[in-house]
């Protein structure tokens, strides 16, 4: 039987984990494909998955009535998308749209939360990886906000 372990092992986000930990997590994972323009998730819906992007790019957007979807940021191959599955009320805060065709490993959110509770060492290891991602992204968002390239002072 083909498992997802080889794909999981290859993904940069999980590169710090042991084979055993990867095997434990694989039970929560599924291979997903999205067509260009398809939404991975929509603001307001139940947040149930954590996505590791393998191929393609995902746009994180917010919809503004009267001006349409506004792209805040994009995530690409090797990156991860979706944090709202971690905390109640488990509802997506943004829209995520596949820009081209996207291949991703999707972790069932509840399954992942439960595994992290069950095995605290693994839970801590994953939490550190996630925290680092979020820390990086926060710095980047701050930089993005500075609007450094605008022409007026």
């Amino acid at each position, binding site marked *: 039987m083909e498992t997802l372990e080889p794909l999981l092992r290859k993904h940069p986000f999980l590169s710090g984990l042991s084979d055993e930990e990867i095997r434990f997590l694989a039970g929560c994972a599924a291979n997903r494909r999205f067509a260009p323009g398809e939404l991975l998730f929509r*603001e307001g819906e139940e947040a149930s998955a954590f996505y590791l992007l393998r191929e393609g790019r995902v746009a994180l957007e917010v*919809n*503004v009535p009267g001006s349409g979807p506004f792209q805040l940021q994009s995530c690409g191959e090797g990156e991860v998308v979706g944090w709202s599955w971690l905390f109640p009320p488990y509802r997506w*805060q943004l829209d995520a749209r596949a820009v081209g065709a996207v291949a991703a490993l999707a972790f069932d959110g509840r399954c992942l939360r439960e595994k992290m509770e069950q095995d605290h060492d693994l839970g801590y290891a994953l939490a550190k990886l996630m925290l680092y991602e979020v820390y990086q992204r926060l710095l980047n968002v701050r930089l993005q906000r500075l609007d450094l390239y605008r022409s007026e002072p």
Partner: protein
Amino acid sequence: MNAVAAGPWAPTPLPIRGVTRETRDTFTFALDAPADGFRFAPGQFNMLYVFGVGEVPISVSGDPARPERLLHTVRAVGAVTRAMCALRRGKTIGVRGPFGHGWPLDEARGRDVLVVAGGLGLAPLRPAIYHLLRHRERYGRVAILYGARSPDEVLYRAELERWCARREVEARVIVDRAGPGWAGPVGVVPSLLARVEMSGGSTVAMVCGPEVMMRFTVRDLERLGVASERIFVSIERDMKCGLGLCGHCQLGPLFVCKDGPVLRYDRLAELIHLREV
């Protein structure tokens, strides 16, 4: 000869008593109300007409306990509002209204009240704030949280400073960006929620601002345990009549002019996340 009166379509011309410049592009107009006063519920709006130019829906932003003066805060963004913002004392603005459902001030009695405003969204909430302050004993804890783009764009700044200084309400102002003269918090309004002392369970929240800001704020309110049947937002849509007759303001089954503009969030929860509805 039958004279067909215009009925609910005809504006009442009211003279401008005074114009206050709030920010670079936002003005508050004080109109002389008709003899017996202009009564309205906080959260309601009027259709304001500029002679020969057009009509726009603008929330009433004054004190409901002072019906002799009718206040509207207007930002100059389109043809009608730009023409309006050029008018001065002595000129006339046509008024039709008040229309719509206002803030749930009766329903909130006995409960903690959380007022969250962003940008121009403070204007439709100001009448509710006046009411809450005037009838303070009817409510539990009252908190007023306001976010603006920058210190220059803070609305009703002097009034806000007075509210921040009062002890019986907790008022905080936050700006997205600030220069060296600003000593207050910098960031987004939802971040103020964590610092407010509020019991989630029975709190009534009234939120007004750009739609995205309201959506993010509501998300955080829900996380703090505020029930979606006790969260109220004020929605904007294109309006041509304010009477439920022109069809423009529809949002799903709702006519924003008569079912809103203040709407209970649980009624909106599904609609507000759909695109292009």
